[in-house]
């Protein structure tokens, strides 16, 4: 089982409304805290394959894996500042995006 440099989660955008989604244990979630974490290459491959199928099923677009760090509480936090922005919303409008709904 090949190791990953960092654990990963799968991100996508909802086709109909464009909101950022995270693949969770039971399908797409809108809060990254419910994202399923891949800890090795096999698990990451499974996430990616699911994402590819979801693109083909026309439910999501722009699917990709992102590196995360997993906290003691099991919550994944993206390592790159781009994805840190995506889990919250614009840093200049805290009243908008997921952060406005209490996510992140």
């Amino acid at each position, binding site marked *: 089982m090949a190791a990953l440099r960092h654990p990963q989660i799968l991100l996508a*955008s909802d*086709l*109909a*409304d*464009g*909101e*950022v989604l995270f693949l969770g244990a039971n399908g797409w979630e809108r809060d990254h805290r419910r994202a399923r974490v891949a800890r090795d290459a096999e698990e990451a491959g499974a996430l990616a394959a699911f994402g590819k199928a979801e*693109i083909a*099923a*026309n439910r999501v*677009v*722009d699917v990709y894996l992102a590196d995360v760090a997993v906290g003691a509480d099991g919550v994944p936090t993206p*390592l*790159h*500042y*781009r994805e840190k*922005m*995506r889990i919250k*919303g*614009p*840093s*200049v*409008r805290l009243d*908008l*995006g*997921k952060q406005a709904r209490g996510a992140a």
Partner: protein
Amino acid sequence: MTAHDPALARPNAPTTTYRYDEYDAAFVKERVAEFREQVRRRLEGSLTEEEFRPFRLMNGLYLQLHAYMLRVAIPYGTLTARQMRRLADIADKFDRGYGHFTTRQNLQYNWPKLVDAPDILEALAEVEMHAIQTSGNCIRNVTADHFSGVAPDEIEDPRPTAEFLRQWSSAHPEFSFLPRKFKIAVTGAEHDRAAILAHDVGLAIVKNHEGEIGYRVVVGGGLGRSPFVGKTIRDYLPRADLLAYLEAIMRVYNRFGRRDNKYKARIKILVHEKGIDEVRDAVEAEFAAMDRSVFSYDPAEFERIAAFFAPPPYEAPPAESQKLRAERAAHPAFGDFVDVNVAPHKAPGYAIVTVSLKPIGGIPGDATSQQMRVLADASERFGFGELRISHEQNVILPHVKQDDLFDLWKTLDAAGLATANAGLVSDIISCPGLDYCSLATARSIPIAQAISKRFSDLSRQRRIGKLGIKISGCINACGHHHVGAIGILGLEKKGQESYQITLGGDPTFSASIGEIVGPGVTAEQAPDVIEHIIDFYLAERQEGETFIETWRRIGHARFKDVLRREGEDGADI
């Protein structure tokens, strides 16, 4: 029949802008219906994203970092009050109650849903607006001087030309799949306020020795990854040849422009690699060989379009308003606003007002739906119901009577729209950057906000004088950083946001591309560095000298050196 024919008058429609004829209305309506069907097919799954993407881009719909984004065209930056109100209504009904005015005189909604996009486009079509060709590899929204038709230094209003080009380029079958996007800007004045030298094609309205109106044609300008100042391909082009000559340029570009590498596909690369002389020879050969009859100039048609842009029915007030003089003296804050945001008008007793969308610490170019309505109301009450959007991301009220300026100012002030900083250091151009844009490599808005706050003292800003700071969140340069007197480019460096600073950019007829001043800095350091640069300029400038003049006189190395020394002195730059 003229544009001022009462038979053509409609509620809230000023008499100074183009109005759709039956063909225009039918075309836009058909495009909405077509896109509605494309969206339906996408959502039901009969179109893949790969198939759908070109359709949505041709209708201005992007997928961004947090949501879709719809870019609405504001042709040559001209809006009616009715259109501005509709933009506000759409912001409330389909978005989050605000819009972002861009450096290409467009408006962007940051939160639309794909499922709502056809309804939004239909709402736009009802007020003669659309999002066609605001994206994709086609001829984009034609931009123009935001002081068109009212500037005292104007040779001719460029908007009829821009509208002429809009009609020519809209859904042009030969140019709908160009190697890359293609941007045209037009100015009709002695001073370039439309940055025409930074466009794929720039047109400057000029007169020849016989006094006939024509165009200086500039080609190959552009910013982005490889910035170039446009080069003159024709010193004087008769108006009668305009469409045919542009057609020849587009054909040469379409034939020889690179399609193997998107970063080398703009016409500026063709001009750079082949040289302007070789490109000119190819264009002239195409122009000579082509069947020009289909582009034959119909003066009556041009005049028909020009008539829409006829001056509004100005009154005849005194050239200098005594009322204004008294109110300026009595209200210093109003006096500051007039000094900075009000420009001379060609009609005696009138003024051009720049409404800054750059409040101190605010988001450059953003306006709430409520502010849009205030602006729409103000334009009707004080300015014939017409507004302009500048590429500097501000709103212009182009026909305000000097006697009305104080009442207008009070109206604007109550809505948070009276910041007296037009053209000053806090009137910063900024792209949305990584707060919204999926292409961005760093945030740009927070940098603009931090600099704006650092220079929040308006009297200090006035002492500094006119100074353009322009910020882009990636190398695509939507924030025009290359032509900022001070330019800031956000990049990723070792997994962190980093900001590269350039000096000496100029978007006007004396255009130049800024030069890098030193290593990248962090977001926290950026305001300090900008302040050091400006302090050095203030120490070195001679009487009446602008930043760019001082920079050109003393040289880039001096600025670079002072920053290096500041770094050595412990400023950690």
